[in-house]
């Protein structure tokens, strides 16, 4: 076994390794720009480069389903959520001088020390370990789907409950605070629509949703 593994030296990299190294350099550079730039929107856009580079790395590791999920979820939705968050908190366009806090050098020390320790341990442990990428893909959609719905069905369903809880929690957290602060919205709706309709539409869901369950009442609170 040792002979077969030492046949793969670090000094004679394969084509997949060279591609992985180049894409990894781009990914790591984009990650560094993400955490060091002073323009907040540029940080979110460099995060797109980082996550896309990681999707390419998944493809090189023959995990194609994970790669497309990465593109869909991270590049598609998480970055858009972050950009909306930057927009809603009125982040300054251009350079903001207070993007980094005062403990920058302590953070840099901790990060460099942990990076050195982690890389030393990982290289020392997996120096001679070889991933055989030939043959059928280990992470094709068929293999992933079969394992996910044969062995991981119960965590998969529990995850859907967690996503529902996160959705309801995000709605509850981000709604307006009190019902006492409702007169400005009533006036603004009176400008746009009919003012006698507003109390009618406010009374109607209460009468309709009174005998329903708890989630409906939570949603009704969110509407109020």
């Amino acid at each position, binding site marked *: 076994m040792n002979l077969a593994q030492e046949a*793969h030296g670090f000094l004679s990299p394969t084509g*997949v*390794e060279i591609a*992985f190294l180049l894409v990894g350099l781009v990914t*790591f550079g984009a*990650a*560094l720009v*993400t*955490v060091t730039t002073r323009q*907040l929107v540029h940080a979110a856009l460099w*995060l797109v480069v980082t996550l896309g580079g*990681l999707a390419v*790395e998944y493809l090189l*590791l023959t*995990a194609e*389903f*994970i790669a497309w999920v*990465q593109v869909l*979820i991270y590049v598609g*939705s*998480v970055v858009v*959520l972050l950009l*909306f*968050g930057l927009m809603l*908190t*009125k982040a300054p366009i251009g350079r903001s001088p207070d993007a*980094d*806090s*005062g403990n920058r050098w302590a*953070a*840099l020390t901790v*990060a*460099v020390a*942990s*990076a050195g320790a982690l*890389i030393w341990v*990982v*290289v020392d442990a*997996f120096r001679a*370990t*070889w*991933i055989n*990428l030939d*043959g059928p893909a*280990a*992470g094709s959609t068929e293999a*992933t789907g079969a*394992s*996910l719905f044969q*062995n*991981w069905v119960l965590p*998969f369903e529990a*995850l859907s409950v*967690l*996503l529902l809880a*996160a959705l309801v929690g995000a709605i509850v957290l*981000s709604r307006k*605070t009190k019902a*006492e*602060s409702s007169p400005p919205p009533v006036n603004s709706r009176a400008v746009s629509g009919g003012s006698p309709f507003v109390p009618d539409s406010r009374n109607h869901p209460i009468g309709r949703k009174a005998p329903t369950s708890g989630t409906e009442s939570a949603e009704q609170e969110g509407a109020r």
Partner: protein
Amino acid sequence: MHLAYPAVLAALLFCTGLYGVLARRNAILVLMSVELMLNAVNLNLVAFDVWLSRTAAETLHSGQALTLFTIAIAAAEIGIGLAIVLAVYRNRGTSDIDKLRDTAEGHGPEGPDGPDGPDGPDGSGGSGGPDSDNSDDSDGDAPAAEKAEATA
């Protein structure tokens, strides 16, 4: 491919995210750094799953399943985190995590300002404070302080 390549890249990305979490001041940039750390863990999971699916005869593909679960949990986390950041911004007029010191203990000059209400220094210090912040202040200090403690 050597397993060391993805493992080293994951370690580098994780430490980059660690630096971002420790050094950034805006809350949304901290959330971006958390995403970087989660992605480093995902890369490790995928690489080790591909390695184990070659060496072991029978595998559950647990690395890839856990990667999918991590991605879904990260999406939920970013939604909740942004909701909390927006609620804090609506109360305080800032998303600067160095200014959210209401639950901190034992710092001297901030101490007398704490019982006065959290929106006393922030209403004046928040230069980019919108008008809705002032309207929240005019509604009453008690709900703002109560919600600030709830979000903190």
